[in-house]
Structure formats: C-alpha cells, structure tokens
C-alpha cells in the first residue's frame, strides 16, 4: 500500500512528466481508499488550472507598447 507522502509525490509527478503504469495504478488504488489524498489531488488539479490564468490580461498601455515596437521593427 502506497503511503500518502508517496501518493502526493506521484500525483505531482503526473502533472510534471510521465508516471509509469504501475505507479499510476498504485496511485489510483490509493485514491480509492484515501479521501485525504483524493481531496489533495482534486485541489492540486484545480490549483494548476488556476495558475494558468493568474497573471491576468495585459493593460491597453502594455498591448500598445508591444504593437508600437512591432510597427517600428517592420517599418524600418
């Protein structure tokens, strides 16, 4: 039986690179039985979805600065 520390590590690895099928299977079995890790995994997934948008949109000024430089570079 996987320990929770290992389950947390493996759940993270699934969001990082590849996790072998056996480890994936062990994690899945652990999650069936451990509601704390289930909660952790669900919240980690939401967190990683959230960080993608955390920087928000650029302001009009920022966008204009980029476009201005672009015009200058293509105009020359």
């Amino acid at each position, binding site marked *: 039986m996987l*320990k*929770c*520390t*290992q389950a*947390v*590590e493996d*759940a*993270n*690895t*699934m*969001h*990082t*690179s590849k996790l072998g099928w056996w480890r*994936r299977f062990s*994690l*899945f079995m652990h*999650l069936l039985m451990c509601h*704390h*890790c*289930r*909660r*952790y*995994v*669900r*919240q*980690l*997934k*939401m*967190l*990683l*979805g*959230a*960080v*993608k*948008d*955390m*920087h*928000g*949109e*650029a302001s009009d000024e*920022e*966008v204009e*600065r*980029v*476009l201005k*430089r*672009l015009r200058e*570079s293509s105009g020359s």
Partner: protein
Amino acid sequence: MSSDNAQEMPVTGMANRESEEDLQRLRSGEVAAFEQLVRRHHRALIAAARPLVGDEAEEVVQNAWIKAHRALPEFEGRSAVRTWLTRIVLNEAKMLLRKRGREVSLEDTTGGDADPQSWRFGSRGGWALPPRYWQVEGPHEVLSSDQLLECLQRLFGEMPGNQKALLEMRDVSGMDFEEICNDLNVSASNARVLLHRARGRVFELVDHYQETGEC
C-alpha cells in the same frame, strides 16, 4: 468520484488556449487577433522571463513578440500558442545571456529550502494535518480574490528564482518537462523537486487562505 479521478490528469487550461478560428485569424495576419494574443499572454511571458533575466524581461519579451509575429503564418499548432510563445521567449533570454557571457542554469541554488508540506505528514507517511476542503466551484475561483493574488505576488517575490521559473514554464506555460530541463540546464530529479516545492508553497498559501480568509 470523477473529479477525484487521477486518470483525468494532466490538466490543460482552456481559458488561455486559442480556438482553431483564432489560429486562422492569427495566421492570416489579422491585427485584432494579434492584439488579443498580446493581451492574453504578455504578462505570463514576462513572468516566465523574469527569473532568467530579471529587469530585462520586458525587453526580451518585446523581441520575442516581434519574432513571433514573423513566424505566426507558419505556426502549425502542435502545441498551445502560449507554449510556443514561451519557447521563443526562452530562446531570446538565452541569447541575451550569452551576449552577456552568461549561461542559463537553474541548477545552483537548490539547497537549504525545505519541503513546504512535510509538516502535514506523520512519521509513518500518512496525513497528520490534511488539507482543508476548498470552497470553490472550479479553477476560476481558486485565485479569484484580489487579496489572495496580492499574497501570491508576495510569495513569488520570496520564492527562489529557480522554483518560480519551473512553475512558470511548466504549469503556467505548459512547456514539456524534458524540454525545460534541457533548455535550462537542470537535471530532471532536481527540477522535479524544485517544481513540486513551488506548487507546495502555492498550495499552502491557498489552503491557509481558505481556512482563515487571510494570508
């Protein structure tokens, strides 16, 4: 228990992913589409460049936009646009550093930083203090409070640059992990530790905020 099911991983963000229609407009050089692209990704690109080049991040990203604009007609869409843009930014950053006689490397400053979540586990590897239940409907609600975003900025200010860089490249920009390790001269085992610690810190911040309403 579908939302708890590990088989669904990894997540791909939808909000910053361009539609096929967006891509068509971008490839055909439509100005409004490019403007929208800049609006969506500019800040994330600067955040990705900053741990590598510091105050020169804005300059690096500006140059990357010029290159991206030129290359867009040939963009094949094999990766998300943000991932592709980040790759261009990373190349620009490396070029700038090379000009300064420096190399990109995230390897050197690992030591001394403890696992931010180890205190939650007992000696036998089980949860002693499990995370609390977050009162959120989905990812869009996790970081929706201004106060929390402010705290997050503060946290990023204190976070080691290599942890921050990995979080930005992998989790925000969706770059391939192996590619990051190669490009940033860091071993996979080291990078994994750094990235998981960065996530752990952000997780702890949100968990604490969920519990106390402050951070």
